[in-house]
């Protein structure tokens, strides 16, 4: 699906580690974050406070989990997972709904399991039957969200007060538990991606599917796992939100698939696979959170958030495309 233009001239020598393009590419995210923070401190005196910065992290820590999963999906060449809103909702509804039957902690695990099963449906169809991920996740998202609404029948599922719920919704050493969970999961996934065979498989599958298959890389399993992982993480996302606000409704995850994809892309990971990193996505999530925060602090109407996000997204990918053309790396 990429617009791959054939080279028009001799390729420049492979870029050394410190060429301008790659340096800019590595620094672009921290630079963007710093720029946004400078803007924020100009706009509002209360921006650079611990409280506000903690809020910024907290606001996107749950949906950030879905973005982390989407990173694996992108790196292995799975494009995107459009069923995230459905798996978020399933995780949340099951975790709260089953709370009174099996207890809050088992119910949370059950919620994660159900959401992971949703991801499994995607994984099998995309990894093993090799159907286009956009269509599969679109269809499964429909299906699963419809099921979720059928289950709930139009009501709101309230959380039973519990020690577990209070813990998850509260703070630990000054930071909200959701933020801890986001960073710990990000760390685990980063290590997985960079230091384990499974991580290398993802890069291989995304970089060159046929070659990987020929080299005995379990290509189908790898791609399928990325979607199972995303389902699982989306379920966690739903549970975190539901426990935080004390209730769950099927629309709880609405729009999260776009947030996840945007975070991944702004972070610099290509949706077509072969390269990327968890750290970049963490950067992307932080950038999105900062934009959201700034819009309110500046006082712009809420729809301006989409305008800002879309524009920044465009600028980031356009610059990225330009740099990659210049350094001879195409696509």
């Amino acid at each position, binding site marked *: 699906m990429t617009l791959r233009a054939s080279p028009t001239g001799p390729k420049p020598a492979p870029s050394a580690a410190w060429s301008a393009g790659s340096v800019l590419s590595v620094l672009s995210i921290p630079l963007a974050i710093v720029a946004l923070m400078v803007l924020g401190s100009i706009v509002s005196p209360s921006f650079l406070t611990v409280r506000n910065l903690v809020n910024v992290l907290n606001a996107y820590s749950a949906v950030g989990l879905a973005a982390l999963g989407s990173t694996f999906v992108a790196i292995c060449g799975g494009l995107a997972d459009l069923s995230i809103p459905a798996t978020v909702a399933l995780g949340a509804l099951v975790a709260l709904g089953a709370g009174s039957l099996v207890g809050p902690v088992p119910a949370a695990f059950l919620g994660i399991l159900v959401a992971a099963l949703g991801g499994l449906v995607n994984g099998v169809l995309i990894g093993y039957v090799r159907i286009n991920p956009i269509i599969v996740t679109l269809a499964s998202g429909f299906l699963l969200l419809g099921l979720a609404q059928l289950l709930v029948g139009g009501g709101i599922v309230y959380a039973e007060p519990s020690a577990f719920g209070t813990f998850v919704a509260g703070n630990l050493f000054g930071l909200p538990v959701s933020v801890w969970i986001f960073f710990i999961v990000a760390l685990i996934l980063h290590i997985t991606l960079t230091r384990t065979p499974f991580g290398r498989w993802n890069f291989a599958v995304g970089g060159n599917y046929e070659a990987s298959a020929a080299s005995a890389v379990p290509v189908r399993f790898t791609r399928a796992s990325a979607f199972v992982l995303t389902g699982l993480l989306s379920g966690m996302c739903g549970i975190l*939100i539901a426990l935080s606000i004390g209730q769950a409704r099927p629309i709880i995850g609405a729009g999260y698939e776009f947030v996840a994809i945007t975070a991944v892309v702004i972070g610099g990971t290509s949706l077509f696979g072969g390269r990327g990193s968890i750290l970049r996505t963490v950067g992307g999530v932080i950038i999105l959170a900062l934009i959201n*925060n700034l819009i*309110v602090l500046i006082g712009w109407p809420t729809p301006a958030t989409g305008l800002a996000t879309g524009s920044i997204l465009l600028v980031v990918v356009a610059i990225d495309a330009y740099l990659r053309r210049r350094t001879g790396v195409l696509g």
Partner: protein
Amino acid sequence: MTIRRNILLGAALSALTFAVAGPVAAAGVEGKSICYITAANSHFYVTPANEGAQAAADAAGVKLTIVSEEFSPQTGADQLNSCVSRKVDGILLWPLDANSYLPGLLKAQQAGIPVVAIDTKAGEESMKLIASFVGADKYGQGQISAKQMNEALDGKGKVVIIAGQAGNNTTIMRTDGFLADKAEGIEVLATVNADFDQQKALVASRDLITKFGDQIDGVYAEDDAMAAGFLQALKESGLAIKPVILGIGGTKTAFDAINAGEMTSTILQPPYDNGRLAVETLAKVMGGETVAADVPLENTVVTKENIGGFKPVM
């Protein structure tokens, strides 16, 4: 002889007419069909309304077909056209914006199908084609909230508005009503859209508190879920202010908050009764009765003082 025959004929005819008319009048609307174009199939507020409508339809012996706009007035306008071409006997419409339904309503009028609006009023032009409106006035809810705020703040103070989804009719009505009737001394610091979602309201409220801090004297949340979001953010922040918090909806969380003194008031909108009353009104219109153009559902304000007499609606 002719006269006697005529009298006999007349008597026979009359008897026949009464014999036929009797059962017809008793049947009324039984067996007729109503097309109910509702806002959603699965929603905490709309679903009870649908259930109320179904119950009333069953009681009247009317066949009710429910189709859902899923919050898109464009879909609803199309569904209205479909219902009209199906030649149903009555249409119950949940207008999601002012005038998208106008063409369909014109067609309904031409086809002689009566239409009743539920929950939200359509625009002026459209309402002329509608037999009756059954619901709580959303614009009125905004006005009532303004009055609450005026009283609570003594006509002076700074407020933030946590509004629903941008472009949504309920949002527009509730916001406009509030802005129209709020006192001059009340300044709106900011308006944010939180899509009637507690999580979004929570995130936005944190930022509002960061920006305005103790300047916030009052909060007008256009529904109870968003009011809950603000309350949560307020507790998190530890800020020692007690702003006036208004909500709309009459949910359980709002009742708890009012009882605890954290929230000032909410407005009851009983969805089940809304649905039931709407179908009953439509049945009356279908049966040939004249009904009032407005069958209002009272916007009941629930505060700490009178909360004892009410129960949460959801």
